[in-house]
Structures are given as C-alpha cells and as structure tokens.
C-alpha cells in the first residue's frame, strides 16, 4: 500500500517536472536570463499573430484562370495539328474555362477531324457532336478537379518560397477553409504589408518571344503590313507601363522560353548603370533559347512579363543561357522582380479576401492584459478554494497548478500557438476546472456526513464522482472539437487550450489530487479531514 503511494507520488512529480521544464521554464528563463538549453528552447510555446503583431491574409486562388490557360493551350494545339493535316475549320473558340467550341468542320473531313481531335484531347476533354459540323469540347470533371487542386498546391508552394525569400521568420502558409481554393498567409512581424502583398500576388508569368513587327505607337500602324489583321499564330502585346513603354508589339504566340526554363534571377545593372534583372536558364531552356536566337539574329526579342512587354532588345548574336531584363526600374522593383522570378510563377492570379494587421503595440497590450487577467483569475480562484475548503483547498490548488503546468507544457510540446483567446481559455480552465475538485470534495463531505471514516469517504468520493467527471469532460470535449473545426487562428488556439485543459484536468483532479490525499493521510490513520 505504502509502496503504491510512493510510486504514484513519484509519477506525479515526474509529470510535473517534465511539463514544467517544457512549458514554464523557457518563459521564466527568457524573462530572468537563466540558462536555457537549446533543445528546450526549440520546443517553446509559440505566440499567435494577435499577440506578436504581424499580418494575417486570406487569399483565393482563381483556379478558373489556370483551367482557362490549359483549355486555350489545348485548343491552340488542336488548331496547329489540324493545320498540319491540311484541314481548315471555320473557327475554334474558347467558350469557358473548361470548354471550347469548334465550328465549320467540312463534311468530307469529318472523320479525319475526329481522329485528330481525339488524338489531341481525348484524355482530358469530352467531345460532343453538334449539328452542321460543330463540336463542343468540355474538360472532364475529374481532370478539372485535379487541375484545380494542383493550381492551389502550386500557388501555396510559390507563396511559401516567396515569403521565405522575403526573410519572414516563422511564417504560416496553409490551405484555408473548406472551399479548397483559399490560402492563409500569416506573416509575424511584417510591417511593410503593401509590399509583402504585392510580392505574394504577382503572377510573374515570364515569356520571351520573338517580335515580328513593332514597336508601333498604335495598333493600326503595327498591323499595316498584315492587312490590318493579326495573323493566327501571332498576338499583339502592349508595353509595360511600369517600364515606361506604351507602344504595341506583334509577337509570335509560341514563346521561345518561359519562366519555367529559368534557373536563377538576380538584381544587376545594365550597360547604362540602371537597375536591371539578370537571369540564367536551365540546360533545356538554354538549348531552346540558343536555337530561337540563332535563327532570328537581327530581330527584336520581347521579354514579356504578365502579358506586358517589359523590354525588347535586338538579338545581336546567338544567346545561350543568360539574359537581362532592362527598363526604367527602381532598385526596389528590380529586387522584388528577381525575387518573384526566382521563386517561380503562380499558376493563376490571387484575390485577397481578408487582411488582419496587428501592430506590435496592440499585441503587447493584449499580452499584458491577458497576463493580468490570468493572475487575477488565479488569485481569486485560489483564494476562494482555500477559504472554502481549508486544508483540502490546498490540495485543490496544487491540482490546479499541476493542471496549468501540464497545459502549458503540452501546448509547447505539440507546438500549439498561444493566442489571446487561448489565454482566455487558460483563465476559464482555472475557473471551470476546479469544478472537478468541487464535485469530489462535495461528495467526500456527503460521505463524511454519512458517518464513514475519512479514508473510506475519500475513496468513495473519488470513485463515485469519476463517471460524472468522465461525462462532463466528454460533453465539453464535443463542443470544443466543433469549435476547433470551425475556427481559425486565434479561435483554434482557444479550442486547443480548452481541449488540452480538459484532458489534463481529468488527470490532475483524479490521480494527482487523490495521491496527495493518500500521501498526507497515510501517516495519520484516523485524522479528521479539513474540508
């Protein structure tokens, strides 16, 4: 019996020491400059944005755009294949992000058309035959779904790289909500929010294209040599206003190289000492680029960023693996642009849905008031328990302190984030958590009143209340779980605190508290209980 108690005491003590070391000691060490081993520092309780200050952004990936790009590419490939096969059709038009429409297929070429169309599209698109040589091609639902998912994943990874390049410490970039196309970006300590937002959402689709005509002041001038019409395999692109160029260029639709062929991009200067972006290409990119430049010496090469010509330079000789984007840029623009190019293009544009910016001073205020409320709450509850339950109140207070230490330790250990609502959960865990002790003590009092011995009363008190405790804790866990599901950021922190507080409360109020009773009463067999 005695040995049993010693083991229980040791277990309780070990639990306390471990959780104290993980959850409480690092905070004290930081505050009072005590030595802190690195393996402990690594597990520290993290502070949420609402306490630390920073910006919280929710953005939506416009996945329709990614699908539209793919549908456009597919329809262009079909056009190319038909031309190669010598079949001329009336028109090929993209009707929606997931479908395109073909008209005027000659009746005698119908069989050849369907064979080529199936070749080009059948894995991804369903073909519907209409009247009079018209066809509708619609992306298969599972293909569309996969593509949307890929677009969101790719966007998340790109944002992740960009944020890392920005040098933000401990950012959080994750999928958000149930709609599967929203991304949450949390940047602690960022003050230039406008710049961060701009860098994150820049689509950065880079294409290098051979210029067929231009630059020209107006579109009419540009198309003079082409009878006023844009040839099928070419397109008109305007110069970039940011680079101070408003003229028009007629370029080939097919790009010589794209952003995917980039190996690196960095800020540099051009021959006039103006800021510029220097880039280098991958082996495959260099091969394509060398071929395209070698065949087009003397022509202009347009560097197209997000469908705007940011610069166009004469190709003097075959270029293999390096190039430069010039224009009237500021140093900041060049730094940001090379960052964006380095980190890859976004598959689709992003829309900001929500922005929450917490200044460092507001965060500090929240910490201060949260800590004050916790201390006042603790004092009130402890004072009440001691006055009402006398010496047994000490037992309850020890259990309460255990509970809080385990709560902090577990949160630190699993890497949970402490938010202001989390602190509220902490305070409530104290106030509502002592309920377990109140229930047990109340039962012990009843048993004592029913003329049982102290030891039997304590045993009966604990064992009879255990089922009740289990029921109340499970019911609370149910509502906390739904809260966790529903919430984000701060609310999640709150739900997390509640859940962990409930679990550790069950342990401290039954095991720890009972062990204490047994240990104290072990020596004095029939002492009256101070309760």
């Amino acid at each position, binding site marked *: 019996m005695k040995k049993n108690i010693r083991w229980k005491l040791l277990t309780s003590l070990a639990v306390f020491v471990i959780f104290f070391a993980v959850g409480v000691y690092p905070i004290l060490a930081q505050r009072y400059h005590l030595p802190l081993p690195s393996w402990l520092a690594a597990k520290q309780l993290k502070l949420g944005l*609402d306490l630390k200050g920073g910006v919280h952004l*929710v953005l939506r990936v416009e996945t329709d755009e990614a699908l539209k790009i793919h549908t456009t590419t597919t329809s262009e490939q079909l056009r190319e294949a038909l031309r190669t096969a010598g079949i001329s059709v009336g028109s090929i038009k993209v009707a929606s992000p997931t479908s395109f429409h073909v008209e005027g297929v000659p009746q005698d070429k119908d069989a050849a058309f369907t064979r080529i169309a199936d070749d080009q599209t059948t894995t991804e698109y369903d073909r519907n035959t209409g009247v009079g040589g018209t066809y509708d091609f619609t992306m298969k639902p599972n293909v569309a779904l996969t593509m949307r998912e890929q677009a969101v994943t790719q966007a998340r990874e790109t944002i992740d790289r960009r944020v890392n390049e920005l040098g933000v410490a401990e950012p959080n970039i994750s999928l958000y*909500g*149930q*709609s599967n196309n929203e991304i949450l970006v949390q940047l602690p300590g960022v003050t230039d929010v*406008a710049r961060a*937002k701009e860098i994150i*959402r820049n689509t950065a689709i880079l294409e290098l294209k051979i210029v067929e005509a231009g630059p020209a002041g107006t579109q009419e001038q540009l198309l003079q040599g082409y009878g006023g019409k844009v040839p099928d395999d070419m397109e008109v692109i305007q110069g970039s206003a940011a680079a101070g160029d408003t003229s028009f260029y007629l370029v080939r639709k097919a790009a010589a190289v794209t952003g995917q062929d980039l190996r690196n991009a960095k800020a540099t200067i051009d021959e006039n000492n103006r800021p510029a972006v220097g880039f280098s290409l991958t082996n495959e990119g260099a091969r394509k680029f060398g071929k395209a430049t070698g065949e087009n010496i003397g022509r202009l090469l347009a560097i197209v960023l997000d469908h705007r010509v940011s610069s166009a330079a004469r190709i003097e000789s075959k270029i293999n693996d390096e190039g430069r984007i010039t224009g009237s840029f500021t140093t900041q623009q060049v730094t940001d642009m090379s960052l964006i190019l380095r980190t890859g293009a976004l598959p689709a544009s992003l*829309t*900001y*849905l*929500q*922005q*929450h910016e*917490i*200044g460092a*001073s*507001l965060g500090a*205020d*929240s910490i201060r*008031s*949260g800590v004050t*409320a*916790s201390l*006042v*709450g603790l004092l*009130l*509850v402890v004072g*009440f328990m001691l006055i*009402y339950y*006398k010496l047994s109140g000490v037992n309850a207070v020890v259990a309460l302190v255990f509970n809080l230490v385990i709560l902090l330790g577990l949160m630190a250990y699993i890497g949970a984030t402490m938010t*202001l*609502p989390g602190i*509220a959960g902490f*305070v*409530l865990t*104290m*106030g509502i958590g*002592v*309920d377990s002790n*109140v229930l047990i003590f*109340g039962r012990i*009092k*009843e048993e004592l009143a029913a003329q049982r011995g102290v030891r039997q009363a304590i045993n009966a008190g604990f064992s009879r209340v255990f*089922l*009740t405790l289990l029921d*109340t804790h*499970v*019911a*609370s866990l*149910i*509502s*906390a779980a*739904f*809260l966790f*599901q*529903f919430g984000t950021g*701060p*609310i999640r922190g709150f739900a997390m605190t*509640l859940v962990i507080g409930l679990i550790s409360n069950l342990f401290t109020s039954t095991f720890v508290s009972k062990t204490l009773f047994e240990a104290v009463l072990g020596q004095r067999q029939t002492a009256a209980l101070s309760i």
Partner: protein
Amino acid sequence: MQIFKTPHFDFLRWRWFAIGLSWVIIIAGLVAIKTKGLPLGVEFSGGTVVIVQFDQQPPDSSVIRNALERSMPGEGQNAVIQRYGPEAARQYMIRVPDVGEEAGAELSQKAEKVVDALKKANVGSFKPAGTEIVGPAVGQDLRRKGILATVLSLVGILLYIAFRFQFSFAVGAVVATVHDLLVTFAFLAFFRYDLSLNVIAAILTVTGYSTNDTIVIFDRVRENIRGMRRDNLYDIVNKSVNQTMGRTVITAGTALLSALALFLFGGEVLHGFAFTMIVGIVTGTYSSVFIAAAIAVIWQTRARRMGKMSAQSPATSAPSNTRKPGRRRAS
C-alpha cells in the same frame, strides 16, 4: 465553511414560473434583435476596421467623424468611431462598413483612405496600430460556419447524453442548452455587443459549460433512481438538485470569478467574449436547475401518459399526475 447544508427546496414547483420567465427574456431578446438587429462584428459583416493610436491626447470622436466626412462624403456619418482600450492607450477604433474592391491589392484601399482622411484633417499626430479588413464573401462563409458549428455541437451533445442517459434527459439537456443560447443572444442584443468570432467561441464554451452543469445533476438523478426506486421521478429530481446545489453554486462562483477577471482585465479584444461568458455561466447554471431537470420530468410524464393512453382505450383519460409519474426504472 458550508454555504448549503443540503437544502430542501422544492425546485420543480417553480418549473412553470421559470419556463415563463425564460420565455419573457427570450421573446424580449428576439424582439430586440428583430427591431434593432444584432450588431455583427467585422468578421461576419465584412468591412474595414482601423485602430489608430494618437501620440498626444486624442481629439473628440466628432472631430474624427468630421475629418472622415470631409474626405469620404457619406461614409463619415455611417462610420463607427469608438475609444479603444483604456483611456491611457489613446486609441480609437474606426469602422466603415465596406472594403475597397475585393480584387487584388485593392482590399486595403478603404483603410488607406481612412488614414489619409485623418492625416489631411490634421487631427493630431497618430499612427495606425492595426487594421482588419474582411471581404463580403468571407463574412458570409463565416456566418454559415458559425451556425453549423453551433448546431453540430448541440446535436453531438444530444447524442452523447441520449447514449449515456435516457432520451428524456437528452431532451432536457438540449432544451436547456438552446435556452442558454437564446438568452445569451438576448443579452448580447440588450447590451449591444458585436457578434464576433470570439463571442461565438464563448457561446460554444457556454454550451459545454451548461451541459456540464446539467450532466452533474442528471448523474445524481441516475444514481438516486437506483437507490430510491420507491419514490417518483419528481421527488428524485428534486432531491438530486438539492444534493448537488452546493457544488452548482460553488462551480458557478469560481467560473464567474475567472470570467469576471477576463471582463475587467482581459482588455478590449476579450470584452465581448467575457461578457458572453458571464451571461452564459449565469443562465447555464439557472437552466440546469430550473429548465433541464424540469423538461426531463415534464417530457417523461407526458411520454408515459401518451404511452398509457395508447395502451388503454383512447377514451379513458389517464390520470393527470405530474407528481406521480409511475415507478418504472429510469435507467
């Protein structure tokens, strides 16, 4: 020290009075919500909130309103302008209902306009301390999710209690919890607190707390049913409520103490949260004593009477004895 020496109140005697009182509060609350509306926090309504901190003694709110009105005609009048945090913090919260274009970087346009308007009007040197901008789509989405989370957690609790106890208890517990939700909403409407994410979190916590309270009483009822088979449910419930009374009051007391600490010292952000908790703890305690137990007794009595009526010939009316609802074991 003991507050209650196991009292002997006839709590159930007051059940119809209690139910009436609750209806009065709930209906008054619904009327208040219907006429004045429930103020929604910016997370739910969408909009722009800017918190500015002044370096010196800040101007009167009317000065800020005029400054906004001058640069953003029409919007200054509709803006909510409040002191934020303690006096010494010298902060104002300015809230305008809409955001900039949702597309792209324009989201923060409105916030920038507010700051510019104040700078232009020369109201004293200040700096923006924080902004919160919520596009309309997010607000809608959150509203839906908030309702869903509340309903699902109620259903979860109903199922759990029905599984652990019996159905009439589950009905009592859920009616009590829905009652607490409605009363809490009524008080939010009376005191004009914004319904924010934090408040929803507090409401869900109250759901858990109120159910806890109810479960403790029901647990005692279940235990007493085993020991007191001769007595009827009415007496058993009354005795159980009395036996758990000491615990009920003390727990409500400590919970209230901690919620009060949050209300007084937790700062501006937690104000609505702490208020909701305080209301919820009071109504949750009240409802587990007066509503949950009463509904369980009423439900079971009715159910038994219905059972009798269908078992016997429908013409003979069953004796109406809420006080003596048979002796079947309830567990």
